[in-house]
């Protein structure tokens, strides 16, 4: 009797086992499936940051689908007569009217809108912190350069899609953002006017931008991102996780918890927690109240409005850049826009994309790396990364010059000039300080918790501090890692059960 002619086995593991056998007959899942269940996830809090990004992405997809069912992507002018009385009789776009309607008239509409917006804010924040983790611990090194690049592209797409989505309600604040986006596109030499006219379907504002941005926001970019997220996770499984050095951990193994059941439980629970916190924020913390901003009117503007946080550094760069417009040969290059809003982000993201290759060139390190660095052990990289973040942080602060001036009662001129200086000075100071701190930490005894001191008074009245005895449970004791057992059982398996036999390990 050949294998192919064999009837599907009744399994020793009941109906589930039988179903798995049926699947294995057709898909051959048993061989790879087992090792997938045993896949080891190393344990460290910082490995959870990327998970936050992933789960926020799922929340974005779920809440976003809900919103598309009610949102009308059209710039047609309608007279608002919905349930929000202060806007009655106003001429608004269908996009704005439908957003207000879904906010007030659809059950859970406001909650979903705010969950969607908060999830976006959290998503991009988690990506940035996750990237910082990967950067400072050297997880991007060979063989993971490609995954670093995919992650960076995901960040760029995420920022772009955040801006697009922010623009869709066509309210006063987002409309001003669109006007600025048009002007930035216009500022690109030679092709700028063409690009902006093609993007907006004519001169600003036109009637094409909301329907177009809607399609890009809900279809094009999410589709690309979904593909890239899949590739990101596939590479992660293929190349296996990095881990910090420690007991039994080498370049040749991975130590931690198996995917099933330990990691699966932790991850499922963590997904619910991320969703829960996002829902709490969505229900309790107001975000983007467009009914208060009112509909977009190109001749109106609001004071002290800031973009979402991930656009802040670009806005800051635009604020502090000197007015360097170049004219000549019958042409104009608005360098005060092109440099901060096109060239600068270009440099920031290109540098991020190329960093793994750059570091490989600089250090001539071509080896494979599966063990992570402690940031202090790579002082130059850590110092550079810190300076890079300090630069972006200064630009971010610069996006609120008017608020800072108002709040602290300082002249706006002084704040502007201070930011122009600080944006250069702070990174220059950050580098040597971070470098020195790394060297200092290297010298200190690392990794062990300080023991409590017991202060005693001698008969002469002298006080002496003596480190306390180590108590059981003070130190971190870890067992030697072992392969995942074939069969996990807590209360002892029933040795007489068919197919199950206890063997010595």
């Amino acid at each position, binding site marked *: 009797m050949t294998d192919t002619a*064999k009837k599907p*086995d*009744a399994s*020793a593991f009941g109906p589930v086992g039988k179903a798995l056998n049926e699947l294995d007959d057709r898909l051959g899942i048993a061989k790879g499936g087992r090792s997938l269940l*045993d896949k*080891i996830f190393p344990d460290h809090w910082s490995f959870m940051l990327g998970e936050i990004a992933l789960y926020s992405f799922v929340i974005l997809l779920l809440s976003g689908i809900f919103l598309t069912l009610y949102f009308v992507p059209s710039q047609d002018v309608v007279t608002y007569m919905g349930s929000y009385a202060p806007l009655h009789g106003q*001429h608004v776009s269908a996009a704005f009217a439908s957003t207000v309607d879904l906010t007030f008239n659809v059950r*859970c509409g*406001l*909650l979903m809108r705010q969950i969607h917006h908060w999830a976006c804010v959290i998503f991009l924040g988690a990506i940035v912190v996750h990237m910082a983790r990967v950067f400072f611990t050297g997880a991007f090194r060979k063989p993971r350069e490609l995954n670093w690049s995919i992650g960076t592209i995901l960040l760029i797409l995420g920022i772009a899609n955040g801006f697009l989505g922010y623009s869709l309600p066509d309210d006063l604040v987002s409309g001003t953002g669109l*006007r600025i986006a048009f*002007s930035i596109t216009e*500022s690109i*030499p030679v092709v*700028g*006017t*063409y690009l902006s*006219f093609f*993007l907006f379907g*004519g001169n*600003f504002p036109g*009637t094409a931008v909301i329907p177009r941005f809607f399609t890009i926001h809900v279809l094009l970019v999410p589709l690309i991102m979904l593909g890239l997220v899949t590739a990101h996770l596939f590479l992660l499984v*293929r190349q296996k996780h990095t881990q910090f050095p420690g007991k039994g951990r080498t370049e040749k193994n*991975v130590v*931690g*918890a198996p995917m099933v059941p*330990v990691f699966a*439980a932790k991850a499922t*629970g963590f997904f619910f*927690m991320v*969703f829960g916190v996002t829902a*709490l*924020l969505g229900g*309790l913390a107001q975000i983007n109240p467009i009914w208060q901003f009112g509909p977009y009117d*190109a*001749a109106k503007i609001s*004071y002290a409005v800031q973009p979402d946080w991930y656009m802040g550094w670009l806005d800051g760069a*635009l*604020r502090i850049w*000197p*007015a360097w417009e170049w004219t000549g040969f019958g042409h*104009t290059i*608005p360098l005060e*826009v092109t440099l901060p809003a096109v060239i600068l982000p270009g440099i920031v993201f290109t540098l991020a994309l190329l960093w793994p290759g750059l570091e490989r060139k600089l250090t001539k390190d071509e080896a494979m790396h599966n063990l992570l660095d402690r940031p202090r052990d790579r002082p130059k990289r850590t110092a550079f990364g810190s300076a890079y973040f300090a630069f972006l942080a200064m630009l971010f602060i610069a996006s609120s010059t*008017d608020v800072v001036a108002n709040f602290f009662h300082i002249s*706006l001129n002084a704040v*502007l000039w201070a930011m122009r200086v600080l944006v250069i000075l702070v990174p220059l100071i950050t580098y040597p300080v971070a470098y020195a701190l790394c060297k200092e930490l290297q010298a200190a005894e690392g990794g062990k918790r300080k023991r409590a001191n017991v202060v005693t008074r001698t008969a002469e009245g002298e006080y002496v501090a003596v480190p306390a005895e180590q108590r059981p449970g003070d130190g971190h004791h870890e067992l030697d890692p*072992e392969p*995942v*057992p*074939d*069969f*996990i*059982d*807590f209360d*002892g398996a029933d040795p007489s059960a068919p197919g*199950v*036999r*206890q*063997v010595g390990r």
Partner: protein
Amino acid sequence: MSADDRTPVSLSTAGPDDPHMQPLARNPQRMEMAIGLAMVAGIAAIIGFGVAYWYNADPWVLGATLGGGLSLLGFGITAWGKYLMPQGPFVEERHDLRGTDEERDVFAAAVVQRGGGILGRRKLLAGLAGLGLAAFGVVFAFPLIRSLGPLPGKTLDKTNWRKGTYLVDQTGREIHVDDLAVGGIVTVFPKGKEDTPEGQAVDQTVIIRIATRDFTTRPGRETWGPQGYVAYSKLCTHLGCPVGLYEQQLELLVCPCHQSMFDVTNGAWPNFGPAPRPLPQLPIYIDGRGYIRAQSDYTEPVGPGFWERS
């Protein structure tokens, strides 16, 4: 074939006494109780969300029940995984991703020979195939990109202001010389364009009364400020935001977006912030009935800079 007549596969089992299989919790019974309580509370809150939805409760009730429920349930499941499941650690070997030298050679040979070799043997066909793909790529870009919008042409150089156009406010009311006191300001549009998107986005202009007599903001603009009325484009020359703030004491127009400031007594010269150019001034006159009208279109393009601007 039944399960009984085959030899059972031997499965190694970690016994209950194996330290790797012990939970991390010092007191598993109490931990289980705590986790159970969190999960019960979570489930109750999630059911509460359903009830709140049914009665169309306020958004904060919906958010608090859903968020609180999911958080508690998630906390319970995570704690179960962390404290009650086998603490490990377990290990998995990492296998080299790279193939053997032989596998690599075989693969590279196939790629190079089948790629380069085949293409190299028929250079004409390879060239034609490349040319065809390139032509397709270039030509197909036209419908994808060129159809998206009209060519800019001279669109950005012009506005709807013409000789004799009345200045009207957003409701369409014409501006009369007696309308504003010194220090007054109003946003105006060309008559008939006040309710159109391009009127609001491109033609928007502010008219300010800075004196009672004719006012000259720059040499050569002697007739542009009749009876102290001056009109400037409201589009910031930095990024095109409406220059919506007027600081009356300092006679400055301020852009709220990036804080450029324009001196209205001096041809709206930018004296602070990132704006590179003054706001274009609209030449105006007062007709026989006292209404304010435009002498002509702006003498230069309004709004931010672009390549074709001379």
